[in-house]
Structures are given as structure tokens and as C-alpha cells.
């Protein structure tokens, strides 16, 4: 039997395939297609202190092997989350991780504190990398001092596993990762979206209401893989690899590069069965390559 279990900063996952924040809703949206307990973990959509309306439409542009989004953290706020969404999440039998966003250090802390009180939220993923909001978001993730500051502030109020999600829009991802490690993070998620832009040549207008947006999908996989590789070699924290994962082979690549687990994002849109197919594809790979435990692949790149 192939052992797909991995451990990630104290979280025991039944398999290393998680769903990425903002691409899987709160789990139940895919329930007609497969059991939402199947992924190793579900990272739910970003939650902020106050409700946010997000950006005006259009919020999406298709690109070569990818897409841009400019959602802008639309959500109903932490209090609504606690009273209305959390009860539903409890029904899902896998690790649930909340994605925490904000525009000030205080607002991150507020959400983290309220999340800490929720038993079934097993960890939080601190989103200091959203490119689609004016204040905060990516600004925190693109400077070492502010990345450290927000991580340290949240660390003080959040005793459970603290995962920090980094922005790829930086000169040195390793320096940011070190800062976040110094701030007390237990694990890193990388990467969030690359800042991009799309223009409609016929209308001579930006496609997105916000002009720029976040690029995701297979197009960014080489950048994500490189960053996972750089960071896992330099920083002693477990890493969750994200970016363009659509097939089991992609997930294997991230594990080999050093990731302990992976997240599937945009692929959920193109192929709603992506996650179950990746999980079963990992099993096939393990059989083919005689790998008994998936964790043996982590960092297993032959140089």
C-alpha cells in the first residue's frame, strides 16, 4: 500500500494535495463532483476583519496557459465566517486551514485571534501576498521588515501552526522567507500570484477593472518551482508548493524540489476533478517508481 500521508508542522495530512485558497470556496461547492474530505487539506477563501466587497467587474482575464484575477479579497468578514461558514466546515473530514488577509497588522491579528478560537481550524495561512488590494496584501509580502512584523504580531496571538504565504513578486524570495522564519512562522506557502496585466487590443482597454491582477496557472509553474527549490535549500521550514499544478507529475516535481505538500488552484476551474486525479496519479507514480512513502520524494531531486 502506498503511504500518502505527510506531516507538516504538526499537521497530519492524509495526503499532500491541498486545495488553494480562493479556488475551492469553502469545500461544499465541489461536493457534487467528489467528497470534499478527499484533499489532504482545504485552504478556504481569504477572510478579513471587516466584510469586503472586492473589486468591480471584470475581474478575470484569460492568458496563455493561465489567468489573471482581480477579485480583491471579497468576503463577508471574520464574524460572519465564525457564525455562518465555520459550522459548515466542521462537517468536512479533513484538515481545514483558514487563509487570513488584512490591510493593517492589527486587522491580521484580529482575524488570527478569532480563528485561534475555532477548534476545527487547524492552522492559518497568512496571506501577505494578495496583489489585488490597494492597502496591505502584497505590500507586506514584498519587504522583509513588514513581512517579519506581521508574522511576529500574528505569532503572538496564534498558538497553532502558522503558515505564511509569500508573494513571488520580489527580488529575493529567500530573504523574505528568512524574515518570515524569524517572525516565527511554522511553514511557508509559495507562491501566490505574479502581478500581471491584460489588454483588449480591439477595445484598447485593460481587461481588468483594476488594470493589473494576479497571474496563476501552468504559465507560472517554472517560477514557483524555482522559488520552492531556492527556499527549501536556504530556510529550515517546511514549504507548501503552489503554482500551476494540474497533474500528478506537477505535484511530484514540487515534492522533488523540496515541498512537503502542494496546493491545487486554477486547475480546479479547468478540471473540477483535478484534485482526485492528482491524488490517484501520485499513487500510480509511487507504484511505478517503487516509492513506499510519499514523504520520501520530498527534496529528492537528483543533482
Amino acid at each position, binding site marked *: 500500500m502506498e503511504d500518502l500521508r505527510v506531516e507538516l508542522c504538526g499537521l497530519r495530512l492524509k495526503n499532500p494535495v491541498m486545495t488553494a485558497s480562493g479556488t475551492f470556496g469553502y469545500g461544499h461547492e465541489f461536493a457534487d463532483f467528489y467528497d470534499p474530505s478527499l484533499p489532504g487539506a482545504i485552504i478556504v477563501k481569504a477572510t478579513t476583519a471587516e466584510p469586503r*466587497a*472586492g473589486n*468591480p467587474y*471584470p475581474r478575470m482575464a484569460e492568458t496563455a496557459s493561465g489567468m489573471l484575477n482581480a477579485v480583491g479579497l471579497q468576503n463577508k468578514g471574520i464574524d460572519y465566517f465564525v457564525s455562518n461558514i465555520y459550522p459548515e466546515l466542521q462537517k468536512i473530514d479533513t484538515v481545514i486551514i483558514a487563509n487570513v488577509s488584512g490591510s493593517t497588522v492589527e486587522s491580521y491579528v484580529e482575524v488570527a485571534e478569532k480563528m485561534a478560537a475555532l477548534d476545527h481550524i487547524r492552522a492559518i495561512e497568512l496571506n501577505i501576498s494578495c496583489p489585488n488590494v490597494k492597502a496591505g496584501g502584497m505590500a507586506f509580502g514584498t519587504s522583509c521588515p513588514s513581512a517579519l512584523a506581521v508574522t511576529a504580531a500574528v505569532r503572538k496571538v496564534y498558538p497553532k501552526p502558522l503558515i505564511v504565504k509569500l508573494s513571488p513578486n520580489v527580488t529575493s524570495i529567500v530573504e523574505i522567507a528568512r524574515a518570515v522564519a524569524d517572525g516565527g512562522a511554522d511553514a511557508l506557502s509559495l507562491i501566490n500570484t505574479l502581478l500581471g496585466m491584460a489588454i483588449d487590443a480591439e477595445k484598447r482597454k485593460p481587461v481588468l477593472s483594476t488594470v493589473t491582477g494576479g497571474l496563476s496557472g501552468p504559465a507560472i509553474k517554472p517560477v514557483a518551482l524555482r522559488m520552492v527549490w531556492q527556499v527549501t535549500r536556504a530556510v529550515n521550514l517546511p514549504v507548501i508548493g503552489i503554482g500551476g499544478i494540474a497533474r500528478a507529475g506537477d505535484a511530484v516535481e514540487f515534492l522533488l524540489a523540496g515541498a512537503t505538500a502542494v496546493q491545487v488552484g486554477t486547475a480546479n*476551474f479547468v478540471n473540477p476533478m483535478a484534485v482526485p486525479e492528482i491524488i490517484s496519479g501520485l499513487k500510480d507514480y509511487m507504484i511505478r517508481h517503487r516509492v513506499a512513502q510519499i514523504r520520501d520524494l520530498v527534496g529528492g531531486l537528483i543533482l
Partner: protein
Amino acid sequence: MSKAIHDLVLRENVQLSPFYHRLDFTAPSPLPECEPGQFAELLVPPGPGVFLRRPFSIHAVDYKDNTISFLIKLVGEGTRRLAGILPGTVINTVYPLGRGFTMPEKGPVLLVGGGCGIAPLLFLSARLKAGGFRTDCLLGGRTEKDIIETADFERNGAVFITTEDGSLGEKGLVTAHSLFDRPLPYTMVYACGPEAMLRAVAMLAMKASVPCEVSLENTMACGVGVCLCCVVPTTEGNQCVCTEGPVFNINRLSGWDQAARIADSCPVI
């Protein structure tokens, strides 16, 4: 109305005009229950320039034959590629998605369709006929080449036509049709087409105090309510067209009671 993912098999590809194809598919297992106004996300045959699925309204459903049809207007790479598929081609499809039209309490009702906006209206018309509601239909297009399937709509009531170049029916936009010069003898207006047209229809319906439902479009990535890319401002805040719509009562749409914008269907704010 649970969602299914099926490998639909093309039975027939009918070119209705230079820009329109009707694709009739057979489902491999029993069709899920579909409502008029609901849509499907089709996986376009792979190739450059198309990454995401493409949303299309359900145009016709035949549970007896287990077939489902879509009306495809050629606008870009994805629709061109779909319009080129041959019988036997398998198209992976997620459906039915979203919320459809509500049935009226009594008739007669008016359908207003512009361009590929007739796609959901044909299915609606069939349901209304089955429900015994008389259904008139107003179809608009740029030229007579945009006016298709009138015979299908005629089965259930009068068909009025406008074309911008006057090549068929009255000359002008749908909303300039003489129908709107008199009090509207309908209990409900259902409309689908470009946003500018829908806003104008909404204004006319509002003026005539006739309830109105419109089917909206938006740029969609997931089609199932998780990406939040497809929102429209409503009285309850931004709502996803793919799950709360695509059909909305115009009362719920913010700003739709103001003068119709003539501009783009997707204004950049």
C-alpha cells in the same frame, strides 16, 4: 439539481447562419435535470489561445433522446474551435450551472433576445409552452443573418423582429420596436443579450410596470461559485453571476433603474 461532469458526444453540428452553430450532444448517462436559463461549462478542444472552459446557456433539452443542445455564436478562438467539431467529438461538460428563469403565474409573456441571447430563450419558450403560457418573442440583430430559429419561437406565439440595417423586420434596435409604443400586454418580460440591450429592456419593463428577468454574462473562470470572478453589483452586494444568476430579476441589480448605459457590456469602472 445536482451538477454533473459528462463527456458529451456530438450528434449533430448545424450551421444556422454564418455566425451561429447549434451543437446537439448526446449524454453518456441520463441528463441531469436542467432549468431554462441555466448554463454549462464546455471544455473546448485543446489548442493555443484557450485555457479555461467556456460558458454556454442550455438551448434545448430532450430527456427522451437524452440530448442537450447549445447555440454557439462565433466570437473568438474558443467558439470557432467548438463550431468546427465533427459528430462523434467528445466535449467534457460541467452542467447544469446557476439559477434559471422563474415561471410566471399567468401569461402571456414576452421574450426579448439579442444575438446569442436567444440561446436560453428557446429552452424557456419550450417550457412556457408546456406550461400553457402564451409567449411572444422579440428578436433583434444587426442584420437578417443574426435572426435565426424564428420558426421555433413561432410555435408558441407571435415573433417580432428588428434588425439594425432593416434587412428583416423593423429597422433599429430591439428596444425601438413599435411594440414598446403601446402599453405592454404581458405579465412578464424575459430578456437575454448584450448588457446595453438588457439595461434598455429593463428600463422599458420598469416604465411599463411589468416584472422583468434578465440573463447576464460575465467573465467566468470556475462557473461554480468559488473564484468570485463573475460578480455583478446587486442590492445584496456583489453576487456571482454563475451561482446567483445568470438570471436576475432586474429589481435586484444595482443601478439598473438608472438610464441605460449605451457603452460596453462590461464597463471598466
